[in-house]
């Protein structure tokens, strides 16, 4: 990779900063009409993306019939009528919400943390150690990006059922209906390796040389030099791993049978009966969306940077 490769979000921000001439940064105010149009566009975009969330939260406090009665008017977005927390009470009576939530948190956090370690190590080996055939290995890893998960699901299910596992009760065969089947297949991730690789490649290799002179080995260089300099890449990988893991639906549906091991997304199916409880669906959706929204607000800057640097939406 050449030295012109982007240096991550921080680098991009720096480039953007220097590329903008000073006189355009607050000196000249835009034309009022243009400013108003821009503002209007932003308001419209806010409404388009925000109103569904408002509808979800507001509806979670309404009885089913009222949700449908309000649909034709703006009342659908207002907490009017017979407001109560009955739907939330109903959710707790219908699904083991705390259990599902804990499962999702465990599965997501463990996958994100192990994913950062494993993928960064793989990328480090490819980028810094420079063994023969590293380019080919990277090419093969990147090639797997074009294979959609749906095509791998059945073979993966078959393999998961054949694999042995060493646990406290000794060796058992078959991973189905366990936590590990929801975590381990998703730790190694070609896209995360690529992001780390790209970022590591932009860190000057002279640092490695200097560390080697001081007697550092490859692991020491990885742990004490490269990883501490890779905050933006770690944040990007963490966010891009977190979202799909939190939203896992198809795989747990196939690989998990016991209720105690199900993640939150599968739980939403509990409400889709012949007489669907729409208010409860909205309450459940609100509760499982809340952690993601809180995280988004807390890490808004990193999230936007991650999209900007990776060129994908999570």
């Amino acid at each position, binding site marked *: 990779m050449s030295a012109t490769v982007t240096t*991550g979000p*921080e680098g991009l921000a720096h480039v953007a900063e220097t590329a903008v001439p000073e006189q355009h940064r607050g000196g000249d105010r835009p034309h009022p009409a243009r400013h108003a149009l821009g503002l209007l566009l932003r308001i419209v975009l806010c409404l388009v993306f925000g109103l569904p969330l408002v509808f979800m939260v507001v509806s979670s406090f309404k009885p*089913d*019939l009222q*949700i*449908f*009665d309000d*649909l034709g008017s703006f009342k659908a977005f207002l907490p009017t009528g017979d407001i109560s927390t009955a739907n939330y009470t109903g959710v707790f*009576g*219908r*699904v083991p919400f705390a259990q599902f939530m804990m499962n999702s948190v465990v*599965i997501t*956090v*463990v996958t994100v*943390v*192990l994913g950062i*370690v494993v993928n960064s190590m793989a990328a480090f080996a490819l980028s810094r150690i420079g063994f023969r055939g590293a380019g080919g290995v990277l090419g093969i890893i990147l090639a797997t990006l074009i294979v959609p998960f749906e095509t791998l699901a*059945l073979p993966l*299910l*078959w393999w*998961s*059922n054949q694999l042995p*596992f060493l*646990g*406290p*009760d000794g060796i058992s065969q*078959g991973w*189905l*209906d*366990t*936590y*590990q089947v929801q*975590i*381990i297949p998703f730790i190694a991730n070609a896209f995360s390796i690529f992001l780390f690789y790209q970022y590591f490649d932009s860190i000057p290799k002279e640092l490695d040389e200097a560390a080697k002179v001081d007697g550092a080995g490859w692991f020491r260089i990885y742990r004490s030099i490269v*990883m*501490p*300099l890779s*905050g*933006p890449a*770690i944040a990007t990988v963490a966010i891009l791993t977190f979202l799909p893991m939190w939203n896992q639906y198809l795989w747990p*549906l*196939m*690989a*998990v*049978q*016991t*209720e*105690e*091991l199900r993640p939150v997304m*599968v*739980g939403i*199916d*509990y*409400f*889709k*009966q*012949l*007489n*669907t409880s*729409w208010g409860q669906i909205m309450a459940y959706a609100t509760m499982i969306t809340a952690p993601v929204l809180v995280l988004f607000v807390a890490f808004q800057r990193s999230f936007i940077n991650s999209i900007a640097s990776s060129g994908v939406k999570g």
Partner: protein
Amino acid sequence: MKLTPTTKRVAVGLLAAALPLSMAACTKGGSSSSGGAGGELTMWTHNAGNKAELAAITAIVNDYNKSQSKYKVKIQAFPQDSYNQSVVAAAASKKLPCILDIDGPNVPNWAWAGYLAPLDGLDATLSKYLPTVLGKWDNKTYSYGYYDVALVMVTRKTILDKYGIRVPTADSPWTKDEFDAALKKIKASGDFQNPLDIATSFTGEWWPYAYSPMLQSFGGDLINRDGYKTAEGSLNGPKAVEWATWFRSLVTDGLVPLKSGADPAKDFINGKTGILYNGTWTAVDTRKAFGKDTLFLPPPDLGTGPKIGGGSWQWGISQNCSDQAGALDYMKFAAQDKYVASVARDTNNIPATDAAAAQVKGYEKGGENEIFLDYAKKFALLRPVTPGYPFIATEFTKTAQDILNGADPKQALDQAVKNIDANQKSNGYFQ
């Protein structure tokens, strides 16, 4: 960006926490055995989230577990919406449970695929059941259900009276002309957003379950049931084309919305709809809203008599259960009339046996729900009993949706016939 000491500490802490957590997490697993070992029989049901039915099934299982000491049935509940995918995935990895429930029309396919074992020795018990609640294929019975449901036209007496529309009965249903005229009267009044709502927003099995009876009432069918070799003439003959043209006209004449609301029953209760075409599961809510004004009418006679889909959820045992005798023992125990009655009562559905119906309030002679049993006995037609049914159902759904959206009826039906015939043939007609 350089990591600050605090960030570094957080990262190291997270990593330290994650590793043991992952080890602990990975070792926690559920029982993935297919059951049958050591006297434990695993049972899967589609009722997660459906408290009433799950409680009724749990009560039967508890009774069974108390009644003997050789076997212990253990329930695992799955949400209905994703149940079939879970079963197919489990079958692929040979992890099916000993006892499981199945949506009726899928029984021939699952039996042919080797998922299900026949229920040997239950013939005498099951002879008292409604024929539509038994899952059969290749002259063997693979499943039985506690209840059936019926399709009905839900409306209010005051609506029909207001527009001078006759109240039809099972013995004298609306003719096609009467039905069309009634819808036009309701539309002309302008009182309703939807003169008729046939729930086009529903997905999956609803389309063949709800709309193929209309096709059959016209005189067509999904496939020629004589040998199940071809749909030629049944799904694309003159009667089928007539059905498709009429079906489309419901939308073009403004009698039916092209896309219903997410919950048509709620729209009916909210006064947006004049007549609702739906299942008997709407009875509780609509009666609660309109009391004795609520009417549950038979579907119209569109040519060959009213037709409704037959068959709901049923119970069977899996081929790979290591204790078939135990599973059969449970199935025999659970087939008692008192259990048919309790499940039907708790789910507000049509009891599968007359003896059970006599025990369920509303289904006794002259009871308010007796008409549902009457409709099920008189009008129910099983969906095609062939392992090719899931494919046929998907083709029919796609074709009916295309027709409602304006596709040429004859062309669309011809294409469906071509695809269905090719599938039947490529599978050796499931012999």
